[in-house]
């Protein structure tokens, strides 16, 4: 057993867990943050993607003790109260989900992708960057559309902010 301390969605949390506990199980079972999903046993589907210290990682392939001391953001940490995050809004607007199982991982991957491409994204890049996220419903088309739309709104928003600041 080890004591794990994390900052999750801005809140400091801790708990004693078996060393073999995966981060995703700590989030779901100890913290009741069940938005992060488990879709495979082989680290391939991406349903479990969260941000650890600002980077997208597969929470099914990291031990909770390994993450101890880190800052974690899950799907529950994106919206600002009742206001959806621009990526969440874009998925809704563009019908980027059907059953919704892959969606939390898709959205966490998408926000990370947009952060790393502040000047915008093109379709080929979005499709290549979705390599590690599997969706069994949508055929990806509307997911790609949603990410492109969100990337546009977010780069506009940051440009107008920058203009105001200048």
């Amino acid at each position, binding site marked *: 057993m*080890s004591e794990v301390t994390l900052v999750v969605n801005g809140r400091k949390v801790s708990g004693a867990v*078996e*060393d*073999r506990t*995966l981060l995703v199980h700590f989030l779901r079972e100890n913290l009741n943050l069940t938005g992060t999903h488990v879709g495979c*046993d*082989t*680290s*391939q589907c*991406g349903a479990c*993607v969260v941000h650890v210290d600002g*980077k*997208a*990682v*597969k929470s*099914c*392939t*990291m*031990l909770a*003790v*390994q993450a101890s001391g880190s800052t974690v953001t899950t799907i529950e940490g994106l919206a600002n109260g009742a206001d959806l995050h621009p990526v969440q809004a874009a998925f809704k607007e563009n019908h980027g989900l059907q059953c919704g199982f892959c969606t939390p991982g898709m959205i966490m*991957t998408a926000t*990370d*992708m947009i952060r790393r491409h502040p000047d915008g994204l093109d379709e080929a890049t979005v499709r290549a*960057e979705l*390599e*590690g*996220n599997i969706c069994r419903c949508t055929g990806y088309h509307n997911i790609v559309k949603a990410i492109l739309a969100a990337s546009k709104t977010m780069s506009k928003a940051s440009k107008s902010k920058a203009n105001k600041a200048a």
Partner: protein
Amino acid sequence: MYSVNYHRATSVADAVKKIKSGDAKFLAGGMTLIPAMKTRLAAPSDLVDLGHIAELKGIKVSGKTVTIGATTTHFDVANDEKLKKVCPALTHLASLIGDPAVRHRGTIGGSIANNDPAADYPSAMLALGATIVTNKRELAADKFFKGLFETALKDDEIVTAVTFTAPAKAGYAKFPNPASRYAMTGVFVTKGKDGVRAAVTGAGDDGVFRSKEIEAALTKKFEASALEGVSVPSKNLMGDIHASPEYRANLVVVMAKRAVAAANA
């Protein structure tokens, strides 16, 4: 996953001390070891986490000499501007490994220590004539890779860095398995002051290897056209549900052509 005891190492010396407990294994990015533990293909009693040892992380480029710390992630290799200038083939290779989340965690040291026959980095190490630096010694890549998932590493030996001189020309081309994205065949070619080297991953029955046929043809002329009509024997190549040895033998030549074209671009 079976139960396991986790230890966080603070330095290389500390890791060497901690690895002595039970049937322990080093843990770097965990992108190979944790999936293997989840499916119970691996069941170490203890894990010694190398991820928080500052001295193992980072990339140094001075002139043509490149040194990459063992726990440097695939993401950091792919995006290092200085490295991109002296050896774009290697940053390109790193950008092709797995997916963004895997690249954020997986490390170069973990990849070469694991020596998966379909992993990308071993081909680069062999073709670049890299030196693998451990806490005990320095080993030429030619002496380091020993076969399927086998290396010259001892149980308590840690890869601390890899180092090489950037060659005048280098290129990598990979035919990814459509499902796993590991290399079904990948070829890394270099032309440096010691001549031409061509290393093949994903195809060899015994893991990564240098192709005599490709090297001989490219030594005459370092161009894709020099590989026209060259054939690589399918003996000792892997055959599985994805591709026969003959298919892979053909892929070696096709990937070598693409790698040379990339190196000359």
